[in-house]
């Protein structure tokens, strides 16, 4: 396939995707509107009133401020979990010491319900870092496990090539393992991001020091229904956007190299 044909194919694919997203969004909004209209309950406001609330809160209220706080927490936790998850996953998958020590540790501690550690982390890390800590702890696992599993599946042929060139373990990791596991790592990161936005709500509503979780919780206590929905919609939008960006990155990497 020529490059012009390929570009056209990509544009067509992008337009189709946009159309599907727009259709899904329209269907979702229509269902929501119908449900709100049919129930007539104040706790189920329609999408239009929630959109107006978001607009008003963005310019006059503190929605943007809280969104920034939440984003900072999620991104910091994501950075910590990525560095730790990627390095320990790699060590567990590619080194004999890691495979004996780290691998059983990661697999054994994965099923622990880490969200229950929030009160303990509050004592150890303080209010702000306990929120970041619990998010990082939970999203560490999908990143570490997917990195570990993909690094264990690295095709032997590629490693043999480096071996025959006189390369060391570092060369193998640099030229083979890391590029090979990037799609798996991105899948793990994508799963982690979805979980991160759920956990940030838990962490922020536990002790209210700003963020969308606190915003939702405070609105809930005030029976500000539109406020609750504004927070939920904003948090969901962040989640969907992060997920989509990572999915597109993964897709681009796979289609370029694999």
């Amino acid at each position, binding site marked *: 396939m020529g490059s012009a044909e390929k570009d056209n194919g990509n544009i067509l694919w992008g337009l189709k995707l946009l159309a599907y997203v727009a259709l899904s969004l329209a269907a979702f909004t229509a269902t929501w509107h119908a449900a709100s209209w049919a129930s007539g309950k104040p706790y189920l406001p329609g999408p239009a009133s929630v959109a107006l609330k978001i607009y008003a809160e963005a310019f006059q209220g503190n929605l943007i401020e809280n969104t920034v706080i939440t984003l900072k927490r999620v991104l910091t936790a994501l950075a910590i979990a990525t560095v730790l998850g990627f390095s320990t996953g790699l060590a567990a998958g590619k080194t004999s010491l890691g495979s004996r020590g780290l691998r059983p540790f990661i697999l054994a501690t994965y099923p622990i319900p880490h969200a229950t550690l929030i009160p303990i982390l509050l004592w150890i890390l303080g209010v702000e870092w306990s929120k970041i800590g619990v998010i990082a702890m939970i999203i560490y696992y999908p990143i570490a496990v997917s990195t570990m599993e993909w690094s264990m599946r690295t095709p032997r*042929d*590629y490693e043999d090539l480096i071996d*025959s*060139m006189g*390369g060391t373990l570092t060369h193998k990791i640099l*030229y083979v393992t890391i590029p090979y596991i990037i799609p798996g790592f991105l899948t793990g990161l994508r799963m982690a991001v979805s979980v991160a936005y759920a956990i940030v709500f838990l962490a922020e509503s536990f002790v209210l020091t700003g963020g969308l979780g606190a915003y939702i919780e405070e609105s809930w206590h005030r029976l500000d229904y539109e406020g609750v929905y504004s927070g939920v919609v904003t948090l969901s939008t962040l989640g969907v956007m992060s997920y989509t960006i990572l999915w597109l990155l993964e897709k681009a990497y796979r289609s370029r190299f694999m």
Partner: protein
Amino acid sequence: MELELDGVSFGYKDTILFNGLNYTFKGPSLNVLLGPNGVGKTTLIKIIAGILKPYSGRVLLDGKPLVKGSAAYVPQDNELLPWLTVWSNVELPLRITGVNGDERRFRVLEALKSVGVPDKARAYPKHLSGGERKRVAIARALASNASILLLDEPAANIDPGGRRSLWRILRDIAGGKLVIVVTHDIGEALMEGEHIHVMAGRPARIAETLRGGEGAWGQLKRIMETYYGG
């Protein structure tokens, strides 16, 4: 140039593939390793490439232990790293051995020219045909200055035209290097190889060596009957 297998022993689990194998390949020349499935052809070239370590015995080049990097290996599949461009793939052994930038550029370009794919330098492997991928893998071996070139089923999944041109390139290279090719295709081996080494038995040995070329065609039936059971 003499590549000597000196008492090489190797096996997997309960299977002994080689037990004190002694054999010498003389180069520069184009050698083909033939033999039934599972006899140990790929294992043998992996031992020569330094990928597998024999339980005992040594691989010597002109009397001295063969050092890694002296024998370039081209596997049957996954011969190129898909996330590197053609240029970077060819450059890889030079980067690993610390060759400086100017020399690297010169050697990569020369190698790509010599196998006829300099225009593919910026392409990624997935955009190359099977034949082009093999040529690039051979270019990588040429750029590395390895004195031995080991190829596992290089002509598999390549169209007849591509196969002919691949063998032509290998014959040219064999003018200055020791080339060892593993293949299942007896006819192709007899026609294209300079020396044909037939592996057989368990533990395996080089059961027979014959000269390739047009005259070797008469041996096809006998080789089939003797080593392939029919």
